[in-house]
């Protein structure tokens, strides 16, 4: 993904089209073994093990959720504590001002609210969505990537980039078609 999008010309990637998720997995694995690092796969549904095949690891989303969950519980409790103890103390049925058991439900809901929103927003932010334009949409037949075809793209920024060699790896693994795609 390390692209300079300010340069609108030039080659983006070599893209192979596959008929099945299995072929895509094998192709991704062979490409990784051949030393390619700048690649991405496109499929109509999530495929388990594909991230490992490509060599993509990322745990930013879970960590974000964890941190925002903590922020949520702190916010929820602090809000109640501040309003009931500091700013507007009121004796209700002789309960202590800081009524811990009664403050649990709201703190709990705030935890979930913050964590759930951070999960969704985090997913968008880390995936750089919304993103109206991306060069992969120029790839031949790419509209099928959201329907029933599977694509593997090795990007031109890859240090070992060699169109012919990549095409060979993809064809060996059952690519129906291999084409180059521009910005």
């Amino acid at each position, binding site marked *: *993904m390390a692209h300079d999008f300010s340069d609108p010309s030039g080659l983006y990637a070599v893209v192979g089209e596959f*008929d*099945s*998720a299995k072929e895509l997995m094998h192709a991704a694995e062979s490409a990784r073994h051949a030393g390619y690092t700048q690649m*991405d*796969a*496109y*499929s*109509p*549904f*999530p*495929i388990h093990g*594909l991230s490992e095949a*490509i060599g*993509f690891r*990322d*745990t*930013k*989303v879970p960590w974000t*959720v964890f941190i925002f969950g903590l922020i949520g519980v702190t916010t*929820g409790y602090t*809000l*109640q504590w501040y*309003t*009931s103890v500091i*700013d*507007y103390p009121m004796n*209700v049925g002789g*309960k202590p001002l800081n*009524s811990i058991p009664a*403050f649990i*439900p*709201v703190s709990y*809901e*705030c935890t*979930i*609210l913050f*964590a*759930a*929103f951070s*999960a*969704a927003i*985090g*997913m*968008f932010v*880390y*995936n750089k*969505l*919304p*993103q*109206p334009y*991306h060069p*992969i*949409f120029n790839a031949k037949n790419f*509209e*099928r*990537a*959201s*329907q*029933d075809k599977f694509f593997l793209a090795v990007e031109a920024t890859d240090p070992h980039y060699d169109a012919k060699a990549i095409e060979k790896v993809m064809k060996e693994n059952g690519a129906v078609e291999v084409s180059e795609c521009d910005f």
Partner: protein
Amino acid sequence: LVLASSESVSVGLFSKALGFDISNFVWWIGIGHAGTLISAILLLLRQQWRNSINRFAEAMTIFAVMCAGLYPLLHTGRPWNAYWLFPYPNILGMWPQFRSPLMWDVFAVSTYFSVSAVFWFVGLIPDFATLRDKSTNRYAKVIFASLAMGWRGSNQHWHRYEQMYLLLAGLSTPLVLSVHSIVSFDFAISIVPGWNVTVFPPYFVAGAVFAGFAMVLTWLIPVRKVYKLNHLVTDRHLDWMAKILLATGLIVFYGYILEIFFSWYSGNFYEYKLLIETRFTGMYAKFYWALIFCNGIAPQIFWWHKARKNIFWLMFISQLVSVGMWLERFVIIPMSLTSNYLPSSDKPYYPSTWDFAMFAGTIGFFIFLMMLFIRFLPVINMFEVKDLLYKMGGKKEYVEGAERVEVKA
């Protein structure tokens, strides 16, 4: 509904009229719960069959919670001041009372609604991308493209998407359980006879799932017939849903039995009086016995395999359960208010025209939103069904067949 809100001043201000508003509120919230159960809990339990019904159930959740949300607003009696419920710094220098279960409700229901909406929307994104790529109409393409926000099904997208989806499911599961527990605290924390029962939280949650699955069946059976989705929502799905109805029905029935037991065992005169004079006998007794029939007895027919396969019985029992769950809320809420500690409370309650008008209004609103959803959005989660078929070793033509149906819908 506009009329109803203008009338709500009079509707809401009489303490007993509260009864009808609140029973409807609890009923609607409960209906919403099946959606979250299907989408979140069954996902965590790796029940893959949920994939073909979850989108539908989630939409139902959101619309039901919208209907539910209207009631607390209106029953405040001054709906234009409803924002006073939220903690915001104001010139009065006042803050809401966080020791009150009604405030817990504000947080629980608003969190529930917003998290369900997020869950539903992110679930739709990959399907919007499919629709963007499939649609030929230019306007439809632009709309779906904007909604898909540039989703391209890349492995990085899916990787983070799956992490997020699993986390959302993990967060929604305790959320859904907490929401109805908190709703039940509105009653259980009080001292009103028939309300002050410790079994309320689990019993309300089971009742919610029970009512919700009945509503899912009520909608799913006609929709699958009209749109010919029999290969996606199969007879096995209906069979499983009937089993869940049976199981949650038994839990609810156990709750009714416990209520009877506790009102005797507590030794509390008012609890016992409520049970005998208001529930078992008296002017409301027919509602109580109808409730026992609809929720306790009728679903027992699902012990038989044949009944679970029969569309007529599924539909019929689902209707009975919806009625029964509504009766349950009615039995618990207004009936307790007609018989408690003060003689001044001992007068019968009957809902006014406006109460009925509002109830009809929310049902109409719900049907309207469901119809819009069925018409304009994919009612079946396409990418999850493809995933399911892939894992089952399905053939490609099924995947394509599945898609054709949905895009048409």
